[in-house]
């Protein structure tokens, strides 16, 4: 069978180049993310880098599995007639399965062979991005490990075999009679597998949406950020039903070309769904996750704005001054807390805040009682609300001495906040003077009624940089959003590019088998440019449908965002990155449009009669 696999590969090269490309890029992405994760975990890098790379690796593996299996399923679908022919001359179901698995094995090995060197290129690109955004130190490099060869080859082969498994099982059931029909009968649209996968991921997405508002600020955010992925898989699974229906609703314009494009969309449901699938995932992930991230930032900022009763923020300690009613000076200290004991022992890096409880309560609107040697759980959570924690204050720079404060009882807790913040509140008296002096302090200043704001501001400026609460919140929001954007770019940037290549792949594969259809349209009286225009209209209708369905999957994440922000802060918040959404839509339409033009132009290169007259 391997010989036939080889012959098949050589013949249907456009299909296989597409499949090979999807494996190679998937392997490259997974390999690069894995190597970087291992390197970052070993190196002394930013705290954010390791979890971020973990998410990147998870996302890359998901995308690779998804794109590869959808590309493979599509290539198998395009070859139904060939496979039926094999059955007709005595091929058994097992032989069809073995043929397809043999091809997948070759493609997996070939893809890995290309993917390993390509992965090095991807790694230097990812490293450059992470260095540029300062998630890793400037001297950080992703290190090559010899064992990654085995992992990458394994990834390629496993993803390729897994990707073709379902398609092969389906293809093995193809009936020999289908070889006798000109184009091969359209396969059943919604298979049992699609229903099962669709309903399974729908259940997962629903569960996340339902549970997210009860997960607290951190858990709720994490769950809401994970809704887009299962929601996208759900929509893709039901794609053969949904895509043609939506695509037909797109404005085709009047005339015969519009009617032809509409008929093609209706007729080629599998093709439409295969082109739409990677687009839906791309839109859902990018729009859903950036939208959710930005919404949580706005929600957190809004929450701080509502709960903070101060007029100015000074980046320094401030003593009592004329015109000032309350000053809450808060000193930020990096700390390490240990909770539990034995196997449950857990160490967490947190920020501790040395505060004056009365001033803190007045400014932040939440009472804190600190007595004796006790500490309070801060708005950042991560500390139990009772019992005791072992607290170690860390030095302010690497190598400088910290202070072990021993076991301290947790005597109070303030409500957790969406925007996070310090996890531990303590009295300045608990902190060694040497640390307290050097640590950065921020002061929230509330004015006396009737005080001259500009005079007080001028007075405060002598201690350190002063901003109004509004200015401070705006700067905070901008910084958080910029961090968000950088994280998204690192996590989703290359994945998005990969998904986009998946879209091009599907279109090229779809067009390769349409030469005859185009030729038939031309001998019916359409000019070459009319055929190309009709294919373009069709591509736009499918892209439009994919954009809508991607938005549908993203809106499941937005639903979780609204319910979570409402539950945590009392105000449902949704803040969407419209420029990004518009840019993604524009890129999607441009890429599918250009790909359609090139593929249909190339498929109509020869005079139609040469295609229609010469038949196998």
């Amino acid at each position: 069978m391997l010989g036939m696999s080889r012959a098949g590969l050589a013949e249907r090269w456009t299909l296989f180049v597409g499949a090979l490309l999807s494996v190679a890029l998937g392997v490259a992405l997974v390999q690069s993310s894995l190597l970087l994760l291992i390197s970052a975990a070993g190196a002394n890098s930013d705290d954010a880098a390791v979890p971020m790379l973990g998410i990147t690796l998870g996302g890359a593996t998901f995308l690779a599995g998804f794109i590869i299996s959808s590309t493979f399923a599509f290539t198998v679908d395009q070859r139904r007639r060939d496979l039926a022919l094999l059955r007709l001359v005595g091929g058994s179901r097992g032989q069809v399965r073995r043929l397809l698995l043999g091809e997948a094995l070759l493609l997996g090995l070939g893809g890995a062979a290309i993917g390993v060197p390509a992965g090095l290129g991807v790694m230097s690109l990812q490293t450059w991005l992470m260095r540029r955004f300062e998630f890793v130190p400037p001297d950080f490099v992703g290190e090559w490990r010899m064992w990654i060869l085995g992992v990458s080859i394994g990834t390629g082969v496993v993803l390729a075999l897994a990707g073709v498994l379902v398609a092969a099982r389906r293809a093995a059931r193809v009936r020999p009679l289908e070889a006798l029909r000109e184009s091969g009968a359209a396969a059943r649209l919604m298979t049992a597998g699609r229903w099962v996968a669709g309903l399974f991921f729908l259940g997962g997405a629903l569960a996340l949406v339902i549970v997210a508002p009860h997960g607290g600020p951190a858990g709720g955010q994490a769950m809401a950020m994970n809704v887009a992925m299962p929601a996208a898989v759900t929509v893709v699974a039901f794609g053969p039903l949904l895509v043609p229906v939506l695509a037909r609703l797109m404005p085709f314009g009047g005339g015969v070309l519009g009617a032809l494009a509409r008929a093609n969309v209706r007729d080629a449901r599998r093709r439409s769904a295969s082109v739409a699938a990677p687009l839906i995932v791309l839109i859902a992930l990018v729009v859903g996750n950036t939208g959710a991230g930005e919404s949580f930032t706005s929600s957190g900022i809004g929450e701080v704005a509502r709960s903070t009763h101060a007029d100015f923020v000074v980046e320094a300690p401030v003593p009592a001054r004329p015109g000032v009613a309350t000053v809450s000076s808060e000193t930020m200290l990096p700390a390490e807390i240990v909770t539990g004991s034995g196997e449950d022992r857990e160490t967490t890096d947190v920020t501790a805040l040395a505060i004056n409880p009365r001033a803190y309560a007045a400014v932040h609107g939440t009472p804190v009682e600190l007595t004796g040697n006790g500490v309070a759980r801060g708005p950042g959570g991560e500390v139990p609300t009772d019992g005791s924690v072992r607290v170690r204050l860390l030095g302010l720079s690497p190598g400088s001495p910290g202070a072990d404060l021993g076991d301290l009882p947790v005597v109070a807790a303030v409500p957790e906040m969406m925007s996070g913040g310090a996890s531990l509140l303590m009295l300045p008296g608990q902190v060694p003077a040497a640390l307290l002096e050097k640590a950065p302090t921020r002061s929230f200043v509330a004015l006396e009624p009737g005080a001259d704001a500009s005079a007080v501001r001028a007075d405060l400026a002598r201690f350190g940089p002063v901003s109004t609460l509004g200015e401070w919140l705006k700067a905070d929001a901008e910084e958080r959003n910029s961090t968000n954007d950088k994280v998204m770019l690192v996590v989703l940037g290359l994945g998005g590019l990969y998904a986009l290549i998946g879209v091009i792949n599907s279109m090229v594969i779809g067009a390769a088998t349409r030469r005859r259809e185009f030729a038939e349209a031309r001998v019916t009286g359409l000019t070459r440019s009319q055929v190309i225009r009709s294919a373009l209209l069709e591509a736009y209708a499918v892209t439009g449908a994919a954009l809508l369905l991607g938005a549908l999957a993203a809106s499941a994440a937005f639903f979780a965002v609204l319910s979570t922000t409402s539950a945590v802060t009392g105000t449902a918040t949704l803040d969407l990155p419209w420029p990004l959404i518009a840019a993604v839509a524009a890129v999607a339409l441009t890429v599918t449009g250009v790909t359609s033009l090139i593929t249909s132009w190339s498929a109509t290169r020869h005079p139609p009669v040469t295609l229609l007259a010469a038949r196998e």
Partner: protein
Amino acid sequence: MTTMTMAPPAVALHGVSRVFGRGPSAVRAVDGVTLDFPRGSWTAVMGPSGSGKSTLLHCAAGLERVDAGQVLLGDTDLTVAGDAELTALRRTRIGFVFQSFNLIGALTAEQNVALPLRLAGKRPSRSAVRATLDAVGLADRARHKPRELSGGQQQRVAIARAMVTRPEVLFADEPTGALDSTAARTVLDLLRAMADAGQSIVMVTHDPGAAARADAVVFLRDGRVVDRLAGADARAVADRLAAWER
């Protein structure tokens, strides 16, 4: 049906029906057909478009499920055979030739011919494959791919592929339908020689000239056998067909 009744038929249909669709739009493509295709003889099936001749052929070859009745290939009941058994039959006892050749474009002529044997797990010798190709007059085209061959040559490769397993019955669906008259004559001569050598052939055609080369012609209309001719010439076949098409 004189001397042929002595040997059991190559293929026998008993009350075979095949219905497409359901309810008022249902079409009885084959409607209670009982028919024997004699062993060692060439039978042509004719009829107007939509008379059910291709469906009948597909049912007789075990490619199409039947809704009622029984199809016997020799003494094997095709209507109760599972997929594995039908696959095995296609490898050993049944050969197909179709209007559109249905060769695998990626394989050369000799690879196409060897395919059924290789699927059956045999390692056919090159000389055996070449001999089969030689029998259809294409020994010199063994290394060509289908697209490098003319229609008539492709059809002869398809016949070689069908014959390489030495099947009990060769089913041919419009084998000359896509060929010009010269190529069609070559193919028909080939089939005639095979039938004379004892090969059972069942052929669907709409061409009276092709049907006249067979030993007997069965006429189908609305899914039912309506007439039968033996040893008629093309003119007689055409007249009879015209009568049934009216």
